């Protein structure tokens, strides 16, 4: 069940966030909204609900006057040139749980919107008050950026403001500057709020999408240290495969495969004719020469994998009870 307008207003009051509220007939556009609350002293916002090709969702909340270019935004997020579209109507109801024309940053209070990325216009910070819909189009509330921040923090979000009009170049040496805002595809654990967990792995350096690093970190902590086991609810393109085991059998098979392939290529009618009885020595030397570096590399990978397994186990080891 999505949050209702009244529940939201009550929550704001609980958090002692200052705001003004204005009731009006249902409005579906910023122009219509302006007719009723345009001269209340606050600045109107426009709110877009967007989707990318991998079914990740974004709420872009900006001052009504800020120019938002979806093509530029798409590139800055690292989604390529045409990666962002307006989200379909059904998604509004399903994910944000708000009616048509009511996209608002407050919608992230809903569980269903947990993985929606929120992009806020830095222009909000310099305004005295900004106007948003409180989950319903028959009312507008006006509050300042600090109030909005306080609310967002209370639901486990880390509000970050960006320059939506900027158009920095994006290329191989200039990575997309908003890449961190793309929700990561981490599996979802049911009781998880957006907050970063306090039980952080000392070995885990948390990186990744701002609001979703939390999910990624806890997903890792749940992973068993031994054999591979799939974490539940893995989405289609999962990010964290289980820790690979250093498999001695596989390693040896790989070595033997390469050695025999090289051996077979060394023994031919020509080489037999050429070397006769010395063929054995010749082939042995060639195999050593040809395989030495390759096998050393394989062995190093094996060693590193085994060490990592041990290291991981070591960080979770329970000292003997004396």
């Amino acid at each position, binding site marked *: 069940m999505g949050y209702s307008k009244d529940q939201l207003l009550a929550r704001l009051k609980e958090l002692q966030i200052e705001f003004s509220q204005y009731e009006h007939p249902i409005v579906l556009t910023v122009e219509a909204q302006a007719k009723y609350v345009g001269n209340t002293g606050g600045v109107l916002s426009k709110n877009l609900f967007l989707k990318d090709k991998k079914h990740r969702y974004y709420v872009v909340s900006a001052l009504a006057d800020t120019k938002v270019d979806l093509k530029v935004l798409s590139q800055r997020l690292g989604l390529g040139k045409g990666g962002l579209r307006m989200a379909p109507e059904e998604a509004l109801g399903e994910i944000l749980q708000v009616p048509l024309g009511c996209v608002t940053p407050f919608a992230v209070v809903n569980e269903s919107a947990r993985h929606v990325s929120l992009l806020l216009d830095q222009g909000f910070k310099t305004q005295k008050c900004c106007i948003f819909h409180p989950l319903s189009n028959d009312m507008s509330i006006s509050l300042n950026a600090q109030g909005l921040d306080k609310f967002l923090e209370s639901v486990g979000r880390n509000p970050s403001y960006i320059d939506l009009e900027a158009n920095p170049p994006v290329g191989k*040496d200039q*990575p997309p500057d908003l890449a961190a805002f793309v929700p990561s595809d981490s599996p979802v654990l049911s009781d998880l709020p957006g907050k970063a967990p306090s039980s952080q792995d000392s070995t885990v350096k948390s990186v990744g999408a701002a609001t979703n690093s939390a999910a990624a970190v806890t997903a890792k902590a749940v992973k068993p240290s031994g054999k591979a086991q799939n974490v539940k609810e893995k989405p289609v393109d999962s990010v*964290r*495969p289980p*820790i690979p085991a250093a498999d001695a059998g596989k390693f040896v098979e790989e070595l033997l495969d390469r050695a025999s392939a090289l051996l077979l290529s060394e023994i031919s009618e020509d080489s037999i004719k050429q070397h006769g009885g010395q063929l054995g020595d010749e082939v042995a030397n060639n195999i050593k020469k040809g395989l030495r570096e390759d096998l050393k590399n394989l062995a190093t990978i094996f*060693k590193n994998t085994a060490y990592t397994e041990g290291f991981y186990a070591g960080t979770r080891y329970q000292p003997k009870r004396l």
Partner: protein
Amino acid sequence: MEKTEDKNQQQEEEQVVNPWEVSAKDGGKIDYDKLIDKFGCQRLDQSFVDRVQRLTSRPPHVFLRRGVFFAHRDFNDILDAYERGEKFYLYTGRGPSSEALHLGHLIPFMFTKYLQDAFKVPLVIQLTDDEKCMWKNLSVEECQRLARENAKDIIACGFDISKTFIFSDFDYVGGAFYKNMVKVAKCVTYNKVVGIFGFTGEDHIGKVSFPPVQAVPSFPSSFPHLFSGKDNLRCLIPCAIDQDPYFRMTRDVAPRIGYHKPALIESLFFPALQGENGKMSASDPNSAIYVTDSAKDIKYKVNKHAFTGGQESIEKHRQLGANLEIDIPIKYLNFFLEDDAELEHIKKEYGAGRMLTGEVKKRLTEVLTELVERHRRARAAVTDEMVDAFMAVRPLPNMFD
């Protein structure tokens, strides 16, 4: 007034080589002899290569044999000490400004891996995510993310986890490391750092105070979890020659704070596919071979974009032979074709006009594809847990074994 005008003119005519810009005079080739002269480092001659072979009982790395690593500072001291039984440690690094690594980026790491194996010494790898955050105006989070991604490609070069510590500045700066940074910073005046790196009044203070961060990994006391009690341990830094200014500064400061000067072993720049005069540019994916390129991509890039020294027509080519000085496939083979005899043969035949450009390009494509394939397979075996383990602040008890 006149004096400064003259100086400016001179600067325009000279080549520019520093950590943030590399450009040749008049768009020509980099003059490495002049560079060695100007920087004051030494040429690495054949006697060094022979000595390394003797000391390590294995064939010297292809980059040494072909003069890719061609200059040094105090490498002979390192070798002298090694002969006496005194070990050293290696220090190299990367500025993680992008996810896409090309072959040129891998060169110092490939060489460093060889040094680690041949001399059996430990290695610290610095990821300067703070530097990129400051110079490329990326967010802190993005730089940290890039650092981890780059770490995976670095690990794929085959470093031994029991002898290697990888760290990112954002994670590691502090404690003993920071104490050394302050010691170094106290010894370098603002004027000096402007003189070395060319900072101006418009540059922010982050840039101005960054150089000590890249300097202090040269001192073993910056890594108490690895080298405590070994204050006398020497450091060898394999890097491309454009990093020399950082370490000139470091070598100047070291004796003043009671540390050994780090030794350096420096490489040439890796040429762009379009030729020595071309620039490897991030916005032009055809200017370099990336580690993520498929076999098809490599074949296409080598065939369509590699600048060759072959003649315009087959007849002319058979008559005059290829110009090996400017031929990129030959230069790339110089870097990556292991077999000395085969390379000599190709150079001879191609230079005489008996071998055609197409053949040389075909061989190059094979060599590069094998290299990139091997890297990709190794990269696939690197997990986030492995990165965590490489980057964990942990002792390395077997680092000299």
